[in-house]
Every structure is written in C-alpha cells, then in structure tokens.
C-alpha cells in the first residue's frame, strides 16, 4: 500500500514457534508457561558445568509432521550446531540449533491470495533449536527467568516470496493455523510461543536483484507485523525515490511504543561461530518413522478449504470462517455426520457455535454441547417440532447447563404446535376479533397477512408452527 507502483517490496519471514511437548528439548523439565520464575529448571537447562543435552524424540516427530505438511524434504541425517553468543538469558553461552544440515529443507505453504486463488510461498528450511530464558529488567536489578530456557523451538524460514504487509500477515495466519491444526504449537503470540522476524527490502518494480534489506526483529502480533512492514516499505521507498541508498540494518520492534528502532551495529553484528554440536549424535529418524507420521498427519487448512468448496459448495466467506480453527471445522463436520444438512450445520456453526465459544474462556470443546446434542436440536427444527428461535434459546441454555437437547426443550416449553385443529382455533379467534382488518385484506390490502400471522403467533405464545399458521390463514382469508 505504501509502495508506489514504481517499486515493489520483497519480504521474507523467519518464524519461531514453541512446540507443544511435555518436557523441554534437552532435559526433563516441564515445558510450561506461567510458572513462578526459575521453577522449571535443572542443572542442564541452567548450563551448569559438566551437564550434557539429551534430545527429546517427541521434538523430532512434531518437526517431521510440520515438514511433511509443508512439502519439505525430511533429511535422513541432520546435525545440531552450536550458535555462540553471550547474553544473560543464554545459560551455556551458545544456543543448540541446526545450521548447515537442518531437519527440513525446502517446501511451501499455500496461502489464500488476494484474488482468492491459493498462492505458494516457498520455504527455505525448517530447523530445530532451543529457546533462551527471559531477561526481566527492574529499576534495582536485571533478573533472568530460565523457565523458557531449553523450550523446543522450530525456526521456519520463508523464501522472499511475499510482496506486501497484507500478504505477509496472510502467510503468518496460514502458518499459525497450520501449526495449530497439526497440534504442534498453540501459536500464542502474546505468550511468545509464535514470534516473527521480517526481512524487508524494496526494489524498482521488475528488477531481478534484491535491494539491501532491513531485518525487523521481535514482532509479536499480526497487527505489529503489518504495521512494521508497511512502515519499513514506506521508509525504504522514500529513500529510493529521493535517489538515496538503503543501508542494511537491523531494527528491533518495540511493542510498547509500537515502533521500530535501529539496533546499533554492535548489538547485532555477531559472528556466531557455528560448529557441529559434539555432545549430540547426528539426528536420524528411526526407520519407518517418517511414513508412520505421514499416515497420521491431520488435514491442514488449505486441504480442508478445498474439500469444503468441493463437497459442500460453501461460500468463500463461510469456508474462511469454518477453517480458521481446526476445532470449528471439526464441529461443523461432526454435525453433518450426525445427520444435519450441511447448509444448516454451516449456518449454525458460524453463528451460534462461534458466539458461544467466543463468550466463554473455555476451549471450544468444553464451551458448547456435544455435536450429537446440537444435531438433535437441529433435527427438531427440521421436523418443525421447535422453531429456529426456540432452538437458539435451547442451545444457549444447554451451553450453560450441560443438559441434553430433549430435556432442555421440554423444560423450557419450546415444543412447537403443529396440530392443525388447534391452530385453526387460534386463527378463528384472531379473525373474529379483527373484522375490520379482514375486510381491508379482502379488499386487496394483502400486506396485512403478516399482521394476522403475528397475532396468531402471539396468541399461541410463539409455539405455533409458522408454516401451518400460514397455510390455515391463507385458507381462511380466501374470499
């Protein structure tokens, strides 16, 4: 948006995501957020003298799951490397990472493009590494919390295939959804389990060479990613338009001030002196593991989107809403499996299910009734035994009470009257008291039909089946 049409932006993203493992990557400490400082620590993740790392095999499985989904090549042998730098939150003075031989090479992720058609964003690599601790600065002292030290991380590096902040955000949303679908990460940006660095450069449109890039570190929300990238594109474009030269820089995103600031070259001009980690053997997947994981890997958003379009003919908007979170789509499909028509299932999921889920601080599964119960409710609607509004009332009550559908409908007296004789009686009562309006209607004022329906519904306290009411009224009002 900020770039004038004479220039184009080239953006690559590096995403760090924490993996959902029970223990840390190289020791037995819990991999958990929210404990008091330095609670989940041991000699290994504190970098005591003499300790050695032991690799958590679960990390291998989760990474392969991501790699297969992203169409990457899974390396038969990959190698851990030490990345050397000093920082108080880095207990060993080096981070165990992967460098020359990462576990996953290449691949791509399909992102919905602006025109709705999927676009492939290529990946450079996906590698495994350990997280650092967290520095906490207080006026009186700087402190370090090592709970996060040794948490397993994936670094997912894209090729510079993105050309706008919106596209970058779409890629991130897709990647995050994918990681959540695969149950490898909770993708929680606020808690730091999904973080992003962006490499941004601007070049004259049509040029094949890349311009000097700016690396923006520490972006921890989608909003900030878009803001920071747009800001950077505008800055570089202005420099180029003025005939200037963009200098290679590293910026740090300041989330409190919502702006980037350039880091001093001293802060980032590291020579990390990578070399193979001698304390860990080469990482080799046991025979058959990759195939076993391939067989179990759940569907990802892009595949699900394609399937919903093909099988249900849903609108692009509905597909988007239903696939953003895996459990939403899962619920939608469970309703269909329980016999609900897909249109009704989609509408119900998008309105009532999401409303209830958003209103609750519980995970979706616990916030709403089991799909079988909701399906029972929707079948009552289909059979005209309750009204749609009655079903909504019942659903809201079920979310709170946990009662089943039948009990709730009867307890709330929501059962619908479809008995023609009873409805005819109510119609007669209304028509006999509204003789003027009847005359007007018969004189050609047909808009009054709705008025009669409303009066009948009121008389029956909303329980009359509107379809039957319509039929009976039409008959009785006929001249």
């Amino acid at each position: 948006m900020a770039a004038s049409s004479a220039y184009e932006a080239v953006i690559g993203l590096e995403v760090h995501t924490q993996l959902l493992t029970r223990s840390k990557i190289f020791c037995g400490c819990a991999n958990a957020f929210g404990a008091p400082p330095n609670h989940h620590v041991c000699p290994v993740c504190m970098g005591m003298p003499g300790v050695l790392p032991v690799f958590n095999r679960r990390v291998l499985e989760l990474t392969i799951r991501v790699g297969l989904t992203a169409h990457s090549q899974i390396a038969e042998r990959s190698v851990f490397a030490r990345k050397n730098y000093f920082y108080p939150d880095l207990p060993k003075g080096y981070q165990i990472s992967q460098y020359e031989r990462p576990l996953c090479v290449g691949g791509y992720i399909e992102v919905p493009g602006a025109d709705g058609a999927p676009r492939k964003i290529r990946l450079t690599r996906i590698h495994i590494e350990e997280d650092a601790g967290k520095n906490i600065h207080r006026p009186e002292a700087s402190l370090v919390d090592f709970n996060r030290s040794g948490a397993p991380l994936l670094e997912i590096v894209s090729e510079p295939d993105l050309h706008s902040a919106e596209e970058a955000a779409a890629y991130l949303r897709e990647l995050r959804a994918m990681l959540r679908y695969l149950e490898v990460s909770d993708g929680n940006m606020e808690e730091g389990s999904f973080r992003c660095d962006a490499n941004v450069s601007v070049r004259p449109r049509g040029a094949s060479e890349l311009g000097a890039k700016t690396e923006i570190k520490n972006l921890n929300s989608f909003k900030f990613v878009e803001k920071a990238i747009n800001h950077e594109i505008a800055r570089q474009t202005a420099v180029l338009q003025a005939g200037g030269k963009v200098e290679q820089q590293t910026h740090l995103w300041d989330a409190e001030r919502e702006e980037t600031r350039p880091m001093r070259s001293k802060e980032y001009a590291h020579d990390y002196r990578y070399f193979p980690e001698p304390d860990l053997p080469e990482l080799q997947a046991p025979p058959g593991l990759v195939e076993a994981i391939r067989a179990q890997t759940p569907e990802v958003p892009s595949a699900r989107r394609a399937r919903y379009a093909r099988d249900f003919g849903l609108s692009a908007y509905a597909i988007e809403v239903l696939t953003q979170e895996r459990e939403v789509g899962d619920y939608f499909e469970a309703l269909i499996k329980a016999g609900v028509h897909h249109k009704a299932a989609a509408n119900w999921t998008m309105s009532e299910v999401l409303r209830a889920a958003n209103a609750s601080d519980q995970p979706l599964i616990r916030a709403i009734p089991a799909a079988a119960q909701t399906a029972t409710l929707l079948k009552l609607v289909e059979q005209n035994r309750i009204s749609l509004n009655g079903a909504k009332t019942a659903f809201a009550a079920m979310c709170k009470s946990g009662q089943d559908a039948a009990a709730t409908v009867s307890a709330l007296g929501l059962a619908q009257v479809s008995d023609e004789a009873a409805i005819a009686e109510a119609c007669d009562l209304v028509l006999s008291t509204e003789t003027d309006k009847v005359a007007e209607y018969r004189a050609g004022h047909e808009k009054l039909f709705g008025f009669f329906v409303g009066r009948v519904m009121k008389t029956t306290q909303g329980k009359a089946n509107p379809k039957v009411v319509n039929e009976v009224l039409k008959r009785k009002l006929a001249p």
Partner: protein
Amino acid sequence: MNNELFRLTISQAQAALRRREFSAVELTRACLERISAVEPKLNAFLTVAESEALIQAAAADRRLANGAPALCGIPIGIKDIFATRGMRTTCASRILENFVPPFDATVVARLREAGAVFPGKLNMDEFAMGSSTENSAFGPTRNPYDLARVPGGSSGGSAAAVAADECLAALGTDTGGSIRQPAALCGVVGIKPTYSRVSRYGVVAFASSLDQVGPLTKTVRDSAIMMRALAGVDPRDSTCSARPVPDYEAALNGEIKNLRIGVPKEFFVEGMQPVVDSAVRAALKRLEADGAAVGEISLPHSQYAVATYYLIATAEASANLARYDGVRYGLRAEADDLSELYGRTRAQGFGPEVKRRIMLGTFALSSGYYDAYYLKAQRVRTLIRRDFEAAFGACDVIVTPTSPTTAFRLGEKTQDPLQMYLSDIFTISVNLAGLPALSMPCGYDGNGLPIGLQIIGPAFGEGVILRVADALERSAPVPRRRPAAV
C-alpha cells in the same frame, strides 16, 4: 594392626576388607593420615573431605557386613573436574573457586553406588588445560619422585596422589593425554578408555569430542576393576555407548602368545630421551619372549596430530567455557554494565593458558577462518583415524612410549607453550581417533624417575590392552619403586 594400609592396592584391600582383617574406617583413616603427612610437600589435593570420607567409610563397613559391592570401602580420589554433589568442584580455576554442584557426575554416582570412599578432590591444570599441573590456580602439584619436578598433567594431582599412596586409586580425565602422561611421569597405571565407553555427564567439559574419563591406579588389575565400575551406558550422555561392559579383570590371564604388537616407526622421534627409548624396547623384548610378535607399523599422519588437536580442542573449549559469565554461579566481578561484567569476570577468573586457548579456539571458528582451520583440522582428524584403522588390520595392539621424556622440572616449559604441547605428542593422536590406551611404568631413568609405556588398542579394545599390560607387569624385572621424596 598394619599401619601402612594406605600402601595397598584395590584388589588387596578388597580381599582384606571382605575377610574383615581391618575396617573401611581404618583404611580410610590410614589414607587421611597419609594425606596429612605428604600434602605439605605434594599439594595433590584441592579439597580434603575428612569427615565426609569417614562417614562414607562407616557406611561401607555396614555394607561389608552383608555382601558388599565391588569398591566397598576403597578410598578413591576424584580429580576436581568431576561434579560432586555438595562438595566444591573448582576445576582448579578461580572462576569456580566456590562452586558447589547440586548433582554428581555419573561416574561419581557409580563409585558411590559401588561403595567407594572419597577422601577429596585432586589438583589439575585449570580446566584440564596443561601437561604439568602448573596451570592450577591453586598452586602446582609436585612429583612424589622428585619434588622439584612436575607430576605431569592435567590429571597431575590424581597421578601424584596414587603414586604417593594418598588414595588407592583416582579418577582422571584425558583429552590429549591428561591421564596417561601424568601416569607415566608418576609411575602409575592410567587408562583412557575408548571415546563413549565411559559417561561424561558431570565432567566439566574441556573438549567434548575428545574428553574421556578413566582411572589411575597402582596396578593393571586395579585399572581393570575400576574400568568395570566406571564404564557403561548412561541415559544422561547421548554420546555414551550402549555396548555391554565385559569383566576386564577376568581377562587378565597373562596369555599373549601370537598377539601381534605394532610399533609405529613415527613414534621414535628426535628429542626423545634415549633412556625412554631403551626402556620401551626392553619391554617389547619381554613381550616377544612371552610369545607376542612385534612388527613395525606406520601412522603417517601422526605428525599433524598436535596441530590438529590444538585447533579442535580449543574450538570446542571456546564454546564450552562460555558459560562462565558471572551470571548464574561462580565468580562474578564488580561491574557497571553487562559487557564489563563479562569482561572482568572472565579476565579475573581464568588463568593465562585458559585465555590463550579460548582465544585460539574463537579464532579457529571465526567466519573467514573456519574452513582453513577448524574444518581442515576435522579432515586431518579423519585421516588420523584411518591411519589407526589401517594399522589395526595388521596388529592387535600398538606400543609406544607415553611421553618423550621423564618428569621435567617445574618452570622448565612454562615459558614455551609449544614445548609443553609436545610432551603429549604420543598421546594426542589416540584421542583424535577416539581409541583406548593405557600407560604403565616400564622402568626408571638414571634419576630414579619413572618411564611410561603406552599400549593403544582398537575401539573397545580395553580388554586386550589390559591383558598385554598385565603380562608386562608380571614379567617386570624389578618391582614398582616407591617414590623417594615422600
């Protein structure tokens, strides 16, 4: 009662303790008294844990009453590079001067389990960097055969303590010769096992791909006993081998008939003392007399071993020693900001040799130099490993001198690091190849100083080198001489 219990070997003490000829407490007390008597001269111990040792000994006596484990009641000194739960572990460095680990190294835990008694922690070159124990921040250890001479290093405290009968055996570590060279210079037996044979967990790392744990003992049999207690898989060390551990002691049958012994022509070099040369050749003659076949072999790339070693070991060390930053434990210097904290802590905490190696290793890994130094050294390492593989096609063990000279004088080589590095010329290539090797006494020079002989085996060939060493020990023309200076 025998008032010289400290003179016993492990196997002698084992038998006597089981027969209840004396108690573990009596044996421990004898060693502690010996320590008080000789320490003022030797400085082999950095920490003496008298009351803890006596408590352990008392516990050992209770275990001895009903079927005791292998090392029950045996006083074993621990090089101060091993983490000992609740006992200071300094690595002979100011930077860890007051560091008390909250955990035991795996081998320390195994010795505890086996009933051993720990009289204390032994001196060494700071972070195991050195060949004379002169690089200790807490003063050098002296050679019990001549107090003006070094005990070798880096496990100099371990070798001296065993030679001087302060403990029955000691733990050491060997990265480039740090068990074998001091064993040679102090006239004791020391074995560096195959890389991965013994767990490194809890051993303060110097060079992770080279470091290996081993025992220093008075006899070959004692080394076999210790090896069985130390070796074996450890879930805390992913580089540790899962191969079963044989009964090394049971293999000591003196039988070496038709065993093929290779002698590398490259290892009898200029600068070697003639007395060392002749002592090793005399030992080879004895092996031949016992039926072994001695033949020349070649290790053509061994001339590059020292250079290769000082690139790989220092590169790894530069990363391994980065954790001593004053943030979480150990020395913390007064400072106003972070970079000052790092700079001052490390400037005050590390000695000159450690700083020299950190700088060398940092340089070897730096961008623009990595390929020419670190990577090239790794390639040469592969060639050295292949040399040995080829050699072991033609022989069962390789015999060399352990060190080109007997113990040198304190201060003699401190001004010339390169001369110091060359004292490990025969041992270093073994670490680069990851092979097992043992050093044992094979005679004495004109000053009564011990001469060391090295036996190198193929990977996991601890059994065969112990068998050859045992045969040599049996055929020794003169018994082990007690150190004259203590």
